[in-house]
């Protein structure tokens, strides 16, 4: 539920318009209005006007103009649109731009449109002529264009005996500004004044704000020099006036001085080192000649120009880093380098002068160092490979010339008979041969005793299998025993 408030100045209105300017509301807040008609006790329903921000709807009215004529110029004192306490443009006074349309009263063909500051002047006019002009205000940012003021006309005065100085220039030399101008007559004295630039943008007659430039009061030459520290960082306007003792001229055209534009960027200090067939360049801060109170460290990029000492072909590099390498140069050649600092901005084309030229000879190409490193690496890599190869060779040789006589471990599976096993797989080093005579006829005659003999055999075999340590002795004993028994039994 909205909190509707009665709008002062719009109560019991008989017409169809009302003015609520007296209301102290914020022009940037959204407001909503509603209206209804009343007759006696009867009221119509409310009609709501859609919400809006007053500032957005507002239109710029005509500015107020006050003119003052000189011989070849007119001073145009513009007051911003609205009253002094008007809320609408209170926050945008500095943002207004004013365009003036001026023409000679005699012929409206000769029209000129100019953009002026509130306390600005229109120059290059003819003396003793009636000029008429109209002014409109504009708020570019908010896309608002105001309506023109009424036409004002003024007569320029008779030409002054003393013309104003012309072609004012400001140069920088060492730590001073040099203000120069042109003047047609000789033997005159001049004085120069300065004004902070922002005073021109705010309303009112600021003629009392102009101040004398020290060192430029009553100079006889058409130039004067004053130290840079007179002006702290900022923008200013300068003007010059001529005088012959009795009379003075009108003030010259105002020259804008922006101290930031005049800053001198010192050249950098370069140092070089040659590394193989490339150059390692270091860019250092400029030599500080004097202690500056406001030492500006602008964002800089560096323009480096280098060339072979013998030829004139120059190569240009733009670098932001202060430490970089120029590769792929000819070995044993002398290269020369110079550099300057440039402010990194598209619009501002400011750079320092070039630094001193530095020359250096590049080293001979691919020196032993690289080879040594390469050699060491290969050696380190090849040693394990060589060891591996030699080991393999030794194994091969051993296999061929000095074979090991160990039979394979699972060969005893191939032999079931113990005698053969004992024969072949003798664990002792002794190579003793056992010879026995086994008669074939024995098996036919003593058939019934074979079981016994077999048992003995079995016994023996079980014995021998148990006592494998004294294998050969027992074998000898048992073997010979068996054969004697067999012989004895056979003979019986």
């Amino acid at each position, binding site marked *: 539920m909205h909190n509707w408030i009665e709008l002062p100045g719009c109560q019991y209105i008989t017409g169809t318009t009302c003015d609520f300017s007296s209301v102290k509301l*914020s022009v940037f807040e959204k407001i909503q209005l509603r209206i209804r008609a009343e007759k006696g006790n009867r009221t119509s329903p409310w009609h709501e006007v859609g919400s809006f921000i007053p500032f957005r709807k507002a239109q710029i009215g005509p500015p107020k103009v006050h003119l003052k004529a000189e011989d070849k110029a007119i001073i145009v004192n513009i007051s911003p649109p609205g009253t002094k306490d008007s809320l609408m443009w209170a926050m945008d006074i500095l943002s207004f731009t004013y365009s003036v349309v001026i023409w000679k009263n005699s012929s409206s063909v000769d029209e000129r449109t100019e953009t002026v500051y509130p306390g600005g002047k229109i120059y290059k006019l003819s003396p003793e002529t009636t000029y008429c002009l109209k002014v409109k205000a504009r708020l570019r940012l908010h896309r608002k264009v105001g309506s023109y003021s009424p036409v004002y006309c003024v007569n320029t005065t008779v030409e002054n005996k003393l013309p104003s100085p012309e072609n004012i220039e400001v140069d920088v030399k060492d730590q001073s500004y040099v203000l120069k101008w042109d003047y047609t007559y000789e033997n005159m004295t001049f004085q120069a004044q300065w004004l902070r630039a*922002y005073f021109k943008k705010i309303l009112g007659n600021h003629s009392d704000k102009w101040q004398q430039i020290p060192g430029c009061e009553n100079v006889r030459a058409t130039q004067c020099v004053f130290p840079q520290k007179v002006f702290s960082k900022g923008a200013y306007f300068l003007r010059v006036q001529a005088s012959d003792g009795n009379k003075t001229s009108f003030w010259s055209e105002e020259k804008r001085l922006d101290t930031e534009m005049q800053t001198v960027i010192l050249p950098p200090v370069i140092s070089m080192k040659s590394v193989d067939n490339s150059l390692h360049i270091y860019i250092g801060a400029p030599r500080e000649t004097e202690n500056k109170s406001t030492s500006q460290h602008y964002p800089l990029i560096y323009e480096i120009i280098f060339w072979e000492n013998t030829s004139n072909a120059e190569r240009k590099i733009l670098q932001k880093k202060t430490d970089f390498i120029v590769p792929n140069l000819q070995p044993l050649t002398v290269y020369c380098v110079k550099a300057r600092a440039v402010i*990194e901005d598209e619009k501002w084309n400011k750079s320092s002068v070039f630094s001193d030229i530095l020359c250096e000879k590049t080293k001979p190409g691919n020196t032993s160092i690289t080879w040594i490193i390469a050699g060491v690496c290969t050696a380190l890599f090849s040693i394990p490979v060589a060891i591996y190869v030699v080991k393999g060779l030794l194994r091969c040789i051993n296999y061929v010339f000095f074979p090991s006589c160990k039979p394979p471990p699972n060969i005893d599976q191939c032999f079931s008979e113990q005698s053969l096993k004992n024969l072949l797989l003798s664990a002792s080093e002794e190579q003793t041969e056992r010879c026995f005579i086994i008669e074939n006829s024995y098996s036919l005659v003593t058939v019934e005793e074979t079981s016994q003999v077999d048992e003995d055999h079995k016994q023996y075999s079980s014995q021998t299998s148990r006592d494998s340590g004294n294998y050969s002795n027992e074998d000898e004993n048992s073997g010979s025993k068996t054969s004697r028994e067999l012989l004895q039994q056979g003979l019986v």
Partner: protein
Amino acid sequence: MTTGCILQIALLLCFSITALSRSFNLLQFQQRSTNLECQRLMMKLSGTPESCLNNRTNFEVPKEIEQPRQFQKEDAVLVIHDMLLQIFEIFGKNLSHTGWNETIIENLRSELSDQIDRLKAILDENTEEENPTWENSTTMLWHLRNYYTRIVQYLNAKSYSSCAWTVVWTEIYRNFSFISTLTDYLQN
């Protein structure tokens, strides 16, 4: 190499490239320079007794200024320009009760005016092209202006007394720290 490993390496590369490609442009440099100079000059203005700070009012700084999220460069220029403009206007009001050095005030306004000109040049360029995000940008502007209207109304209500100016001085000094944060968004 697993995809996780590749992803980490890719992220690291992206971060380092972004970090390295931050170009420090002239506008940002000039703005920082102005911020420092204005704060320095403000410190030179003589203060009044602490008792005045009992009258502190919450002027309700717009949230978008106090805690800015991602700002486009054009919006940052617009907001900083307006803030400097309003601070310039405030220091042009009745200062007779403060006893502040006139030269310092003039230097302060001169510094503000120069930076306002530089920002205005960029804004004029931008308004040449029709900007579809203009509506959103101006909403922020109205909030900002309402905030400054409250400050001016406070000064009016207190008849530009010395105490009122002390409170406003504190608020304006705080504004410069907001502007410093917004200056970071002046990257290209």
